[in-house]
């Protein structure tokens, strides 16, 4: 089936089997391998991408469901030149070790802070509780997201 949507701002069109989920499409057909697959049953959150502003499990969404949608992956969160404030905060707080869950953490946190730049620690923990990390123990991730809020508040200011 032919599907057209946008990825990180660019229009794409792919011919896919109906059973191909979005994560496999991004990784295998569009070479966007930053979206990782940790379980393929929606439990780990590593494959989280942003579809029309909402954090979505790319392993639970079929590619054909993205017709006309705008998809943002980890590759779309920053430019070649500089890390985003969220990424910078992750690095500063050592909020990643092996880096495998990190793209899903970043996309989920980005979607959260875009909507709720004042999210408190409890809200952040709740919003990210569907993203599993085995390395960090999560505490530095919460610290990083808290620190990144300032940049989102600034961006939201009219």
């Amino acid at each position, binding site marked *: 089936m032919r599907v057209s949507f946008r990825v990180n701002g660019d229009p794409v069109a792919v011919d896919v089997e109906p059973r191909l989920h979005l994560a496999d499409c991004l990784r295998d057909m569009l070479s966007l391998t930053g979206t*990782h*697959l*940790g379980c393929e049953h929606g439990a780990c959150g590593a494959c989280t991408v942003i579809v029309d502003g909402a954090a979505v499990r790319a392993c639970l969404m079929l590619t054909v469901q993205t017709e006309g949608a705008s998809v943002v992956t980890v590759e779309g969160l920053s430019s070649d030149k500089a890390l985003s404030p969220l990424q910078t905060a992750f690095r500063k707080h050592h909020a990643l070790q*092996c880096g495998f869950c990190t793209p899903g953490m970043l996309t989920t946190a980005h979607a959260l802070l875009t909507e709720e730049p004042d999210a408190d620690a409890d809200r952040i923990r709740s919003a990210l*509780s569907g993203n*599993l990390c085995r390395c*960090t*123990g999560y505490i530095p991730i919460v610290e990083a997201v808290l620190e990144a809020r300032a940049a989102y508040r600034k961006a939201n200011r009219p």
Partner: protein
Amino acid sequence: MIGTNRYIGSPIERIEDLRFLRGRGQFVGDLKRESMLHAAILRSPVAHGLVAAVDASAALAIAGVRAVITAKDIGAVPRIPLRLLPLPGTERFLQPVIAAERVRYVGEPVAVVLGDSPALAEDGVGAIALDIEELPPIADRQASGRREILLFEEAGTNAAMVFTGVKGDADAAFRDADYVRRDQFVVQRYTALPMEPRGILAEWDAAQGRMTVLGAAKVPFFNRDTLAAMLGLSPAQVDLIENDVGGGFGARGEFYPEDFLIPFAARHVGRPVRWLEDRREHLTAMNHARQADCEVEIACRSDGTILGLRGEVFVDLGAYVRTNGLIAPRTLAQCFTGPYRVPNVRMTSTALLTNKTPSGTYRAPGRYEGSFFCERLIELAARDLGIDSAEMRRRNLIGAGEMPYRLPRLEPGGPAVDTECDSGDYCETLDRCLVEFGWEEKRALQGREIGGRYHGVAVACFIEGGGAGPKETARLDLEADGTVSVYVGSTAVGQGLETVMAQIAADTLGMPLGQVRVLHGSTPFLDEGYGAFASRSTVLGGSAVFEAANALLAKIRTAAGARLGCPAEQVELADGCARALDGPSLAFAELAADGLRVTTAFGNDNRLTYTYGSAAAHVAVDPGTGDVELLDCLVVEDVGRIVNPLTLHGQAIGGMVQGLGGAFLEHLVYDASGQLLAGNLADYLIPTMTDFPCLRAIALENHRSPSNPLGVKGAGEGAIIPIGGLMANAVANALVSFGATPNQLPLSPARVWHMGSAKQSTRILE
């Protein structure tokens, strides 16, 4: 050392983060090859049985299914050797790389299907008609010990190994003791669960006779040699390439059946083959860990001085002895006593085979389980004797003046595997922990009910044996642009190896961090390497880099002296330049033409480093629901010397949360027929971001290790060790008025509720 860098000891932001944060890591699943086929593996659906038939005709009829490989295609099926503790007798219980006649656990590989896509390969797996005549399974270690069923009839036993740790005369100590207590404790089966499942991409170059395997981790050099032998190749014909690795924790990177099957398949069909493990098969295929129980006794004087420990530990090893499967049983026999001065010990540890996924090492193998057993026993003794928990431990910690302190002798093994605590003041970390935690104030809450919840505090102490030998290799090349390439046999599993090695190299060379490039793990870089296990990378790899850097500086001085016409000792090195006294200078880049390169192996005579520490916790338990809230948890450890406080702190907090997963959540439940009931991440619960928000870790560097030039100690596995015992004791202390004895992990809500509602000691639940 030259220059004035202070990278070592500074919270240097990690080099590797720049690619991970942008989604530019290169994990094995991100790699493709032209004409690559995809593998999927048919695994045994039953725990024990005889393979009657494997009919692949329907699979091969699917368009896009290219091949099905079974034991028949392989011929003489290789068995996977032990990497550690290859003791006589163990050869009887090694795992074949594929089941030929018999399957012994759910998940054992039976056939490999190659297809044009992963989905087609999986379709092929589903189409194979597998006929297995079921045999009665051994579902637990008790049945294993009864020997009514034997997993290997010719062996005549299901006991793969019996270790004994001995010190002094335990029986005499028990005869003379004021106080003796005996108890039983149980730790459940669980697993490391790295977030990236395993993966392998194998390429066979028939023209060159070369096998290249991507996706290697942990111990690529050992695995290269093993694979080469199995394929009938020389090690020089096989390259193992380490890519980014999504977590290891001891489980990833050992030689598994797939590490043979996928390269074999690539050679068999003459095309690159990639296999990516899915999460369900990961839970049955990757090493399990931890499952052990014990019946142990403690003997004390009435003042709490421990005189002896003795007893028996039983490890449910699963169906085969895998590469490092004997490490946990060994450690339970030898290191049961942890950081405590116990003059008389006799501890046996029996590794028993069952029809479950084989076990291997998982972060602090044997130490986590042993700490739970030992800390529970000491807590019970302290309560019986009316001694404060912290004071009981202080009286029995190994003293600074007793270093080095010899741990029990292990048999089999003997003097070759003797080990001793190397340095430190164990009471110092205990006292610091108690102060930071606020022990004096918080212990007033012990057992108190506040708003329907019961509060409990506990303290525990631990040692972490790290820096296992024998050695590690580093090679430093001065490049044409004046930078230095650092090759090290250590491997990265997410712990920040690139950054830590770059810090050590840059400090030693007196160069900016950006002038040093670290390359690690892959076999083409070095003639030999050892890898990442037993918290050894910074200790051995770091020391090898340190020594190689010093040797490279000496070479640079010599080469510069020759060019500048002065003795080497008069050459000053600074800012990437070699300068004669009051004379001309040469940039390092100009010296690169001399081919300056150094390879150094650093060995430690197998002397382990011992990081040590203390931990304290405060819990509130709701007896009506079995919920345990962790209000505060602190680990204080002394690691000798800190290279990077950021990455070290990450190891501590991350380890604590893994320990909490084991204490409260994680459990690979099997039913009586040997079926795994926790086959996905909805059933197998690891901690999430909302579970344990109140954790603290403090690292000290008061007592360096004498075993290496950096003075560092292995420090990736310390903070996890005390967590099981700490949580059980905190819950026991909270529910003291209920007479709760949480002697079995995990402390699931059901178990805690049972303890809080029954108003009596809980029996060990079956």
